[in-house]
């Protein structure tokens, strides 16, 4: 089901959390709300869910005005950053909660919970309590719980924010696959641009309570609408008065047209890629990213003099 946000405003006292926000989440899509903390992304998600009431504006879910409906009548599944597991219930009871309060028949509930536990790979954990699960398992349980009631939209508030880097990476890939299987309209909040790029089909950048830009990861990266988006969706480095992505810096051993002289301060190997910290001859610092292969080819080392040139600038659209 599609979600339409129409001119939503929300204040907390003096603080303006959402300032006339409008956006469209197409049916079946996987959308990321990306932005720095305090940018309004969690508030927007909570307004969509009905956990916060907007001061102005409307929320439409599947074309219907959902603004006056309380959270329990919106057909949303919500996943919290800190899981919000029901600590006094087993995993099975947690997942069954939405079905139990709807008074569904016992055997139907059991069957559905078993299906969901299989979907989130927690088959053997039905009788455990949340305290006996790892963070990643708890979050998968929370996801199964949210999916149990067959929500029209699935909302995730920094779902991987409390997990360590490895589990985070795993769950990202897993969320993408899950979305392909279940195909429910999904919106998730993140402050991590890499996570948004990797998982989402559409990214909405929120800052200071306003939508800076909405578009595909590629659009945002290559054609940012303004300086904020340009800086937020990917790393930038400065070559004189030109801003470039560090991987768009060309490293040459001989001077060439438009190139600048620089000394390599440090070569850092980061797995597949190599990071160069450079001191420019005419003042200023810059850094470049290149593949390990290319770095080996050039035989780069600390203290070496090289010439750098911007292959492509990141122009604002």
């Amino acid at each position, binding site marked *: 089901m599609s979600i339409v946000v129409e001119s939503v405003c929300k204040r907390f006292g003096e603080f303006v959390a959402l300032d006339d926000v409008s956006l469209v989440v197409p049916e079946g899509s996987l959308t990321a709300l990306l932005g720095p903390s305090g940018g309004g992304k969690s508030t927007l998600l909570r307004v969509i869910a009905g*956990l916060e009431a907007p001061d102005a504006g409307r929320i439409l879910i599947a074309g219907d005005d959902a603004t006056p409906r309380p959270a329990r009548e919106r057909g*949303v599944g919500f996943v919290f950053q800190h899981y919000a597991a029901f600590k006094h219930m087993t995993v099975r009871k947690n997942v069954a909660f939405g079905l139990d309060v709807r008074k569904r028949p016992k055997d139907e509930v059991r069957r559905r919970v078993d299906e969901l536990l299989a979907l989130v790979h927690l088959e053997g954990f039905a009788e455990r309590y949340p305290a006996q699960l790892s963070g990643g398992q708890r979050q998968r349980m929370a996801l199964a*719980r949210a999916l149990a009631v067959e929500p029209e939209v699935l909302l995730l508030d920094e779902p991987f924010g409390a997990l360590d880097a490895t589990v985070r990476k795993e769950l990202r890939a897993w969320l993408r696959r899950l979305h392909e299987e279940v195909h429910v309209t999904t919106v998730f909040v993140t402050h991590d641009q890499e996570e948004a790029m990797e998982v989402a089909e559409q990214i909405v950048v929120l800052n200071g309570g306003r939508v800076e830009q909405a578009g595909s990861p590629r659009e945002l990266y290559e054609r940012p609408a303004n300086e904020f988006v340009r800086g937020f969706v990917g790393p930038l480095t400065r070559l004189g008065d030109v801003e470039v992505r560090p991987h768009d810096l060309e490293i040459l051993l001989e001077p060439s047209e438009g190139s600048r002289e620089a000394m390599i301060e440090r070569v850092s190997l980061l797995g597949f890629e190599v990071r160069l910290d450079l001191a420019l001859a005419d003042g200023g610092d810059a850094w470049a990213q290149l593949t390990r292969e290319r770095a080996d080819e050039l035989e780069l080392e600390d203290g070496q003099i090289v010439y750098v040139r911007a292959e492509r600038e990141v122009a604002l659209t």
Partner: protein
Amino acid sequence: MRSRLALRALALGYLALLLVVPVGVVFRRAFADGVGPVWDAVTTPEALHALWLTCLMVLVAVPLNTVFGVLCALVIVRQRFRGRALLNALVDLPFAVSPVVVGLALVLVYGRTGWFGGWLADQGVQVIFSPLGMILATMFVSLPFVAREVVPVLREVGTEQEQAAETLGASSLQTFVRITLPAIRWGVAYGVVLTTARALGEFGAVSVVSGKIAGRTETLTLLVEDRFQGFDLRGAYAASIVLAVLALGTLLAMNLIGPKGERG
């Protein structure tokens, strides 16, 4: 190692001196001539009535104060309004005010010449010198315990679980019964135990409003004093033992139902 032992000895010694020894002495004195005389002393009509009256205090005050305490804690923790700080302070008032003063205040309000006393007497309701006033006094002094125990637990639990329940389609009542109440249950249980203990043991406030009419308005604590004043030491000890057993039973029940390992 040594300082740890010293610390432990200090804690245990303090408890022994203040609690175990006096209570032990009461038991020893009471049973000096065997169980028979004690049994006789606690089965006199006055003693049985006092026991019944004490139980009545507990049975009325504890459920009412439990419901009120949980409500109060919910308001204090979950709602933002002017006067919240005042409510928070008011709940503690019974801790601060001496029970005797509470009793006097009740007499001033409900006594024959008090604010409502005359009107109530016209309706045929007697508050002072009757079990009704004693119940009011007991409720007043045992009011803060449940709220005080539940407030920090509610803060700790937070609202996320309740919000999750709401998004899953639970009504407010379902959320309260299935999520909030189980989450705060140990706080409530501990509050109930403290409320019960206070209601069992209350003396000052109840004493002022009761008029101490033997066989009519005497609770166990009042009976103990009455017997003690009348030089019936055995009767005093015997009634004390009943009180002590009731209190110990409450604590034991708490430990049996309580979460393993969380409270001693």
